[in-house]
């Protein structure tokens, strides 16, 4: 890991580029291209909006019968991050479950995968608007409404003033003709993209989101974590938009 330098592109053991390292309120973070946030000093891995149980909830409520593989897929990607980083603590920044009922009735293979990931490390479930009261007894880890990291609060939804690290909005940025999940970094707020598989996105240019992080930057989740400014520049390189794909 290239944890010491500021604002670097990190590399994992295999040399694949994975993240963007930056300092914020006295803490050094790496925005991972998976959409997770890594605090190397304390070995915390922070993810937002896993929405486990989403397809099950939709089916239960008479909605679409989506492929019932979202939980496995979300945990597979989270498992890749855990394998690469070996965190001491995993923080789920709220909406870890699509609703409280889903938290209590996880599919057996999803529950087993979760238990395996949590084995040997601490796990903190911050509650969100989808899962305000959940706590299935079978779930590993602890539950809290908020947590502290240095002078920064970890909570589900950003609150006036901050500084806080949150999720909730599922931010995406338009880049090269496509919407990309993105971590948003403003002066007072750091907002994570949704990590869950079946999650839509809210454009960072939506007023509800932009005012929280105005003047800051976004880190788009691609094959590597790409930093981009949040106020659009006056002029941009002209060129035809990609008409393909």
């Amino acid at each position, binding site marked *: 890991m290239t944890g010491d330098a500021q604002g670097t592109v990190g590399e994992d053991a295999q040399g694949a580029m994975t993240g963007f390292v930056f300092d914020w309120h006295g803490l050094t973070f790496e925005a991972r291209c998976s959409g997770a946030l890594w605090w190397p000093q304390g070995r915390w891995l922070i993810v937002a909006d896993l929405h486990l149980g989403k397809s099950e909830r939709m*089916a239960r409520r008479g*909605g679409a019968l989506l492929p019932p593989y979202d939980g496995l897929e979300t945990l597979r990607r989270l498992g890749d991050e855990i394998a690469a980083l070996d965190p001491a603590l995993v923080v789920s920044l709220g909406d870890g479950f699509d609703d409280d009922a889903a938290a209590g009735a996880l599919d057996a293979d999803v529950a087993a995968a979760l238990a395996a990931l949590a084995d040997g490390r601490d796990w903190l479930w911050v509650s969100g608007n989808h899962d305000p009261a959940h706590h299935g007894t079978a779930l590993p880890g602890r539950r809290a409404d908020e947590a502290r990291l240095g002078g920064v609060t970890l909570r589900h939804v950003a609150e006036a003033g901050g500084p806080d690290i949150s999720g909730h909005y599922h931010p995406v940025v338009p880049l090269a003709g496509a919407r990309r999940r993105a971590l948003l970094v403003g002066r007072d707020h750091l907002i994570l993209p949704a990590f869950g598989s*079946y999650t*839509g996105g809210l*454009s960072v240019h939506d007023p509800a989101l932009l005012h929280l992080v105005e003047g800051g930057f976004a880190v788009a989740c691609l*094959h590597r974590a790409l930093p981009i400014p949040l106020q659009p520049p006056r002029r941009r390189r002209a060129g035809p938009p990609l008409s393909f794909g």
Partner: protein
Amino acid sequence: MSLPPAFAEWFARQGWSPHPHQLALLDTAGDSLLIAPTGGGKTLAGFLPSLVELSGGWQGLHTLYVSPLKALTADIGRNLARPVADLGLPIRVEDRTGDTKSSARQRQRTDPPQILLTTPESLALMLSYPEAPRIFGNLRRVVLDELHALAESKRGDQLMLGLARLRSLSPGLIATGLSATVEDPAALADFMGGAAVIHADPGPDPDIAMLRTARPAPWSGGGGHYAVPDVLEAVRRANTTIIFINTRAQAELFFQAIWAANEDNLPIGLHHGSLSREARGRVEAAMAAGQLRAVVATGSLDLGIDWGNVDLVIQVGAPKNVKRLVQRIGRANHRYNAPSTARIVPANRFEVIECVAALEAVRAHDLDGEPRGPGPLDVLCQHILLTASAGPFDADVLFAEVRTAGPYAGLTRADFDDCLNFCATGGYALRAYDRWQRLVQRNGLWQLRDPRATRDLRMNIGTIVEAEMMKVRWKRGGGLLGAVEEAFAATLIPGDTFLTGGQTVRYEGLRELVIEVSPNPHKEPKIAVFSGLKLATSTELSHRVLALIGDPARWDALPPDTQGWLALQAEVSALPQPGTLLAETFPYMGRWHLAIYGFAGRNALQTLGLLLTRTMEEAGLGPLGFLSTDYALLVWSLDPVTDLAPLMDREGLRAGLGEWLAGNAVMKRTFRNVAIISGLIQRNMPGGRRTGKQATFSSDILYDTLRRYDPDHLLLRITAIEAGRGLVDFGRIEEMLDRSPRLDHRMLDRVSPLAAPLMLEMGRVRIEGQGRMRLAEAEAEAMMREAGLTLGEPGMADEAPVPVRTRKAR
């Protein structure tokens, strides 16, 4: 049945005599298909038997008329009103479309009129009501208008499933199909489930030729702007002209260009599918009132209300398809027995050849058309769910009924059961929970587990899947201008200008998912991209073009500059000809280029480009990009392709389609349509349409998830079938290989005459994911730089989120 005296007198009073085909239809006892040119009194022919039968009175719905356009139903309603009133027939004629008021709909459900005019989607909706057996139980006749157009898409499959249902509800009903000229009437009759074909007198041959232009066509491009003065002159001489252009973006540009040269201020309008309904309605009304001298239009005017005053059709750009050209020509001069006048304007040199070939085909009455595949299973899935909405059903009975629909005559029980299973449980290999149940079987009958689901199902009826569009409106109030594709909208930043609704506008911002713009006529606009399916030149027309190029004895039909161009090609390289696949490798601007003259249509050649560049990547040739036209594929790379044959190996290409292209955006788009039609994804939710970003996002995710965890899933199977045609069009690659047993690969030291225009073509595709990623990186870096966020400046404050230099990232 013969024409009753009262009807004969009515015809006489109008100064008409019934056409032979109108009487023939009256004589036919069973199902029939009438093939007649525009203006042949087709619609009246279709209704005549109904009107005669109804003259004695009728309780309930007697005749159902289905048309692809809502506007047509209203027009037909007006046209029928006259004979109904004149003859004093005891008939109510009403229409039932998405625009019909809910009070009228309610009344129609309890007290249907004798004649109901509707669309395939509204019919599907009515069939999903529990009252359907009562509404349609007394139905005698179904009239299917513009059947040739409906049969070209899944709307036709849905309609035929609906017809099968109607036949069950009212045994013995008679179906009458009405169609423009088609290449294979028997196939269209089979599509209806079997019908007697009646041909109307096709009328005189059209007066059709190339438009004489002062300047020759340019080497490349698709705009046809060089011909604007000549087109204007033709408009000036004609009464009313329709100028057909192949794409919406080109129509916008041509409209701008023609107005820039329109010194006489001739009233010329614009009509295409991305304009707001109000804007289109205004143009249509002005046309009907004879207030326009010309309208620049896309396929949006291929069908529709007859405007008797149109006396000239101009086709700008290659017609792509002879049948469509003939149908468009028919839009001019709707007086029966008067020849239609049409002129063609090729947009570039290659299109000159295609236009000449198309003219030959029109004169030879040689129409083209791809044979229809069997009925698609995603449409069947939707039909099963809607059937369940009407009430519990027996699987055996429904299977038998579906097989009476022409497109599904060969449906296997296994495929039907897969569709039923998908509708019931999602059809996943991992049968995780009992909650995955939309349909349940009770007492042997299938029904919705939750009857409230009918609302969602009915809101999502239909098989037309457009790209997600975003509306455009003026920022300072005023109406909607039209819509642009969401993917294009995502590239806009405030201050960008683009062309929409015939005007150059400035992007101001996004407000509640509507794009707000202000007028800005002074800047060079971006062009809104409509990335939907681009119509490819038909197989038959491609063959004609290839045969014409390959036979110098026939070049007399071509303009002299085109002849000279082809002669030079024969001299320095070779001519493409039937039986041979010509390819050329040559250096140009420091890159190696490979041109393959496949004549397989742009979609298939695009797919070939994706597959070839992947193989070249594996071979270490360093492919950098490609572009495809209807005739040729051009690939550029760091190293030359010296041995092409292994790259063109059929099995290798097929394997690539399975493994690699399967993860491509083209396939994801295909999957998305399948997922929407089959009901996996719901476009419309109670409380408003889902925003495009959510639908687009999740369908890609669903596709990836299914591929990883459930590769044999029904929807992936359907997607693979669809890849044989449409956007992927792999079938045309196979057709190309079949008809070209010999590969003629030339190594040249420079660009060949045939390849030269390709160098100027737009629409270059950066290959594979890496190209796209590099583009994103470059764009991100440019944005950082231009925002003044210089990467790498030291001394950043802890509090401020200033990123610093990324260490050697590449």
